[in-house]
């Protein structure tokens, strides 16, 4: 399997754990990720909120670059995945829009690319292939898988059911973890409002953490850098403001697959989290 890989702008900053662990795990599982030469920002929420054309054009520039590579595309970041997949769908379904966008970007895109989330790419391997690589099953890890919004909605691009997705749950069970049923799987953390209106995000994130703790888990699993940042980095502040006492490590699903398949914590950037991950990792035999 070979994909053009779109890492997203936070790949070396706030979400570096995701990029590092994605690359390491894919290499280990035989998925070849090829960097897209000169890829640029997908525009994220600010792009499409400012102008529909801008949102599509910023993604389309990247789709055109991928098309030149003759590959399909995968993105790790849930926000980038959503933007690229939606732009792709719109350009394929609307010839007029496609022409207009191609004029804007100056890089014609002809609709020849499929866009997949890295979650789908890993899940496509199938349980047998992954199980065969498991060296350290994640026994004793009881996790709440948190999908957030961006990869399960809207339906045109959803990777799984928008209310009760299972795709990452299944992957976690395949590598030996225990996943719980909980009702906040696809609630919104407030994502992009964090900088401008942090109080809203703290309130939403607090509810998610509370539900996870009430479900009796010892960690949360995610596949979105925005969710990760809000749940991990803001946990301390939430404790301070709401008088809570959470200490819940938040992992990217790739980090946990990495641990189960024998990669070292250092290879998965487990030391750069804000909530210390060591205690929970020790639980894995």
């Amino acid at each position, binding site marked *: 399997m070979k994909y053009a890989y779109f890492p997203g702008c936070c790949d070396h900053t706030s979400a570096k754990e995701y990029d590092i662990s994605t690359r390491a795990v894919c290499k280990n599982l035989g998925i070849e990720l090829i960097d897209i030469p000169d890829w640029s*920002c997908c525009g994220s929420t600010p792009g499409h909120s400012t102008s*529909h054309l801008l949102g599509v054009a910023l993604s389309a520039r990247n789709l055109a670059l991928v098309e030149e590579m003759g590959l399909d595309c995968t993105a790790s970041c849930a926000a980038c995945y959503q933007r690229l997949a939606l732009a792709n769908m719109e350009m394929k379904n609307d010839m007029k829009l496609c022409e207009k966008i191609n004029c804007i970007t100056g890089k014609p895109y002809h609709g020849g690319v499929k866009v997949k989330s890295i979650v789908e790419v890993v899940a496509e391997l199938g349980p047998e292939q992954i199980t065969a690589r498991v060296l350290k099953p994640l026994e004793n890890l009881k996790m709440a898988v948190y999908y957030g919004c961006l990869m399960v*909605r809207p339906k045109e691009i959803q990777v799984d059911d928008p209310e009760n997705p299972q795709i990452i749950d299944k992957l976690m069970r395949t590598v030996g973890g225990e996943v719980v049923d909980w009702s906040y799987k696809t609630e919104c953390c407030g994502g992009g409002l964090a900088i401008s*209106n942090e109080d809203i995000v703290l309130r939403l994130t607090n509810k998610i953490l509370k539900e996870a703790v009430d479900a009796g888990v010892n960690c949360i699993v995610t596949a979105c850098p925005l969710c990760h940042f809000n749940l991990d*980095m803001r946990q301390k502040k939430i404790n301070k403001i709401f008088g809570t006492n959470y200490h819940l490590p938040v992992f990217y699903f790739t980090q946990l697959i990495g641990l189960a398949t024998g990669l070292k914590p250092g290879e998965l950037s487990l030391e*750069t989290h804000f909530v210390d991950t060591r205690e929970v990792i020790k639980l894995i035999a």
Partner: protein
Amino acid sequence: MPAINLTSNVKDNLDFIMHVSKESGQPVQHCYQCGKCTAGCPVAFAMDYPPNRIIRMVQLGLKEHVLKSQAIWLCAYCSTCTSRCPRNVNLARVMDCLRGMARREGIQLEGRAKKIALFYDCFLDTVKRNGKLYELGMMLNYNLKTGHFFKDAGTGLAMFTKGKIKLIPTKNENYKDLAQIFERIEEMEEKC
């Protein structure tokens, strides 16, 4: 909201209703006000008008109220409403379209909405210059423009100690492509 003469409003603003449904590609006329969108909206508690009211106001042609609302900016584009609407209205898309219209009409924003729009500008400004988001530059610019120079300084420091801040932006080889995209769109949107 003060009393409004709806009959004359609908007539005067029929254009607005048609425009929103055309630009967003959404059948806003189909909404039957069940309220499911609002029931599931995570941000409704902070909005001045909940999502179903916004759609109703669009149906009634209350253009000014809609475009000046905080709600259209507070929408986090989580698409919960979209996936649950029994009338297949993609509300997230409608909210997006309304934000765009508010921009183009030069609506003066206040409160939470103003901060959200400013954040978007600061974000996109770094993309326009560099090709990729430059987080530190965006934060400094946002703080400068809101006058809260040390907002999130604690976060910044924590990020720095974890090696999660880059001091200088990563510039694309063809970073000028991006400025061109922004300029072409501005030109096109000025015309219509």
